[in-house]
């Protein structure tokens, strides 16, 4: 890995054509993990032996003339809230410590069918609740670009694993920005596709109407390739969209000529000047490439935070009721079942998870339901209506992915509200179900990565990728400097 980053696209081509051995690819990445994992802590679990064995199987397939698939021999890191049969899956929570799921998530099955090699399970904010990967029962992950800073969250381990070159691609989950914000902070591509385009079967639920799995990668093409491998209808997920895999790779080169790129004139303030400056360069870049920049308004954008922090905890309080010490993981013994539930949950959940369970329970409780959860659902509709109106004028919208570059470890960990504000720009597309992605676009303060967020209407993921590809090509010509 020393000379140049090998992309998933290159690895898969080389392995499929017998140019490179999957076993060599895996060894190179395990060596990189040996070199840097001690300081980054991207993983809850590295699956070195399993990855070696799987890579050998892939090589055997190639030897006998069988095609292992789109992601042949590509090491992939999985966020540790995706079920892997017989392999510990913790959600970075004490309450699931040591639990081995009896089945694979659909994305895990699809990656295996595409010839990918799972190299480890990555750290996250406990149950995906957080924006810094500091809320983990197993300790924080550090940003590979600057170890004094957070990688973002909640999929911080998956973002860091790609940034540190432990794997060319990884999977995360995004409930309010948990893929796009860490992607921005770590300087990698991160995609939240259209809600329902990737199966949630086997993703341990946080907010079921918001959760969506998506990829991290160094390149837009690698993210597209990975998304093609994992997307498409799954009968095991009742919210799965009835259509085949997303068709992305073929359209990457279509460019943005004639596309209308929306600038949200009433976007909530809060982005720092360095982030704002890069966003302006992104608009200029797309204009130069033939796009038209149009002004749009999304008046309800700023209410997203409130709607989200009532709806997501409400759904979480219901989803996390299943962790009661009966069927999975951790139990604290007590004289009767109710005392056992209380003791197990009190001991097993961390502070932020308890905070959100209580907030959600309150928002749903008798007497407060209409005032909080009910109103939040109506605000959700307002936001969706505003975005629909904006998309009548623009094909895609551009915003910052994160208000700032990566902040220092400990900076926001004692102030939940300050942490929640990290998600200001990413939250609305979870509420609407529309796709969004963060593309690394140069650097800001302290030379740290800045991500530009591209938003698109539901099922227009390919158009979003076209714009992302143009921004990426611009950065390659800039030579990575800003």
């Amino acid at each position, binding site marked *: 890995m020393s000379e140049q980053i090998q992309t998933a696209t290159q690895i898969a081509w080389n392995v499929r054509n017998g140019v490179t051995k999957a076993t060599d690819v895996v060894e190179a990445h395990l060596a990189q993990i040996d070199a840097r994992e001690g300081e980054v802590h991207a993983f809850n679990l590295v699956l070195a032996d399993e990855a070696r064995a799987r890579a050998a199987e892939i090589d055997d397939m190639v030897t006998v003339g069988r095609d292992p698939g789109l992601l042949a021999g590509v090491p992939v890191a999985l966020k540790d809230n995706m079920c892997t049969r017989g392999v510990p899956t913790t959600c970075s929570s004490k309450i699931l410590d040591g639990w081995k799921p*009896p089945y694979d998530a659909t994305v895990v099955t699809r990656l295996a069918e595409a010839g990918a090699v799972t190299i480890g399970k990555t750290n996250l904010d406990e149950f995906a609740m957080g924006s810094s990967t500091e809320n983990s029962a197993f300790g924080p992950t550090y940003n590979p670009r600057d170890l004094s800073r957070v990688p973002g969250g909640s999929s911080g381990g998956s973002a860091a694993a790609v940034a540190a070159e432990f794997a060319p691609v990884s999977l995360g989950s995004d409930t309010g920005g948990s893929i796009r914000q860490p992607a921005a902070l770590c300087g990698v591509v991160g995609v939240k596709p259209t809600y329902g385009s990737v199966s949630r079967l086997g993703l341990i639920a946080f907010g079921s109407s918001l959760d969506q799995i998506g990829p991290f990668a160094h390149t837009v093409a690698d993210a597209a390739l990975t998304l093609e491998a994992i997307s498409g209808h799954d009968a095991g997920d*009742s919210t799965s969209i009835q259509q085949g895999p997303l068709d992305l790779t073929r359209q990457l080169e279509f460019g943005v000529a004639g596309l209308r790129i929306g600038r949200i004139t009433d976007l909530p303030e809060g982005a720092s000047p360095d982030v704002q400056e890069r966003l302006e360069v992104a608009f200029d870049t797309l204009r130069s490439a033939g796009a038209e920049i149009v002004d749009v308004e999304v008046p309800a954008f*700023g209410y997203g935070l409130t709607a989200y922090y009532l709806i997501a905890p409400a759904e979480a309080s219901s989803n996390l009721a299943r962790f009661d010490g009966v069927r999975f993981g951790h139990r604290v013994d007590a004289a*009767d079942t*109710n005392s056992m539930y209380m003791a197990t949950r009190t001991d097993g959940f961390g502070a932020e998870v308890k905070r959100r369970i209580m*907030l959600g329970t309150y928002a749903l409780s008798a007497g407060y339901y209409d005032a909080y959860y009910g109103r939040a659902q*109506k*605000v959700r509709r307002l936001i969706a209506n505003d975005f629909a109106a904006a998309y009548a004028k623009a094909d895609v919208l551009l915003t910052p992915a994160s208000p700032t570059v990566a902040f220092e470890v400990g900076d926001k960990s004692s102030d939940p509200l300050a942490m929640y504000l990290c998600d200001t720009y990413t939250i609305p597309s979870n509420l609407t179900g529309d796709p969004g992605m963060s593309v690394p676009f140069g650097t800001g303060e302290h030379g740290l990565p800045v991500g530009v967020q591209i938003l698109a209407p539901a099922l227009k993921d390919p158009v979003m990728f076209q714009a992302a590809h143009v921004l990426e090509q611009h950065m390659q010509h800039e030579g990575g400097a800003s």
Partner: protein
Amino acid sequence: MTSPEPTRITPEAVAKVASLARLTLTDDELHQATDELGAMLDHFADIDALDLDDVEPMMQPTPLANVMRDDVVGVMLDRDEVLAAAPVAEDGRFRVPPIIGLDD
């Protein structure tokens, strides 16, 4: 994060919520949670002024219809594997402490 007189939520309400959520809080945790939840609910008051009377609530993003399938047995999880992942299992079942003796 400290608001001396939380207006939106009281310690008694937080204690009730914790009990509903099957969580036990120490006195310190109860007061900290009251302050934190109070500050959040104050922040969330930004939607109070919106006129939402004629707005339909949105439950989830996609227009969903019921999904039906034939009522046939599909691939099931392996019972032993499921039970092996439980804290305590016995005779092919999950084992729990006595249920009688619930105190609320």
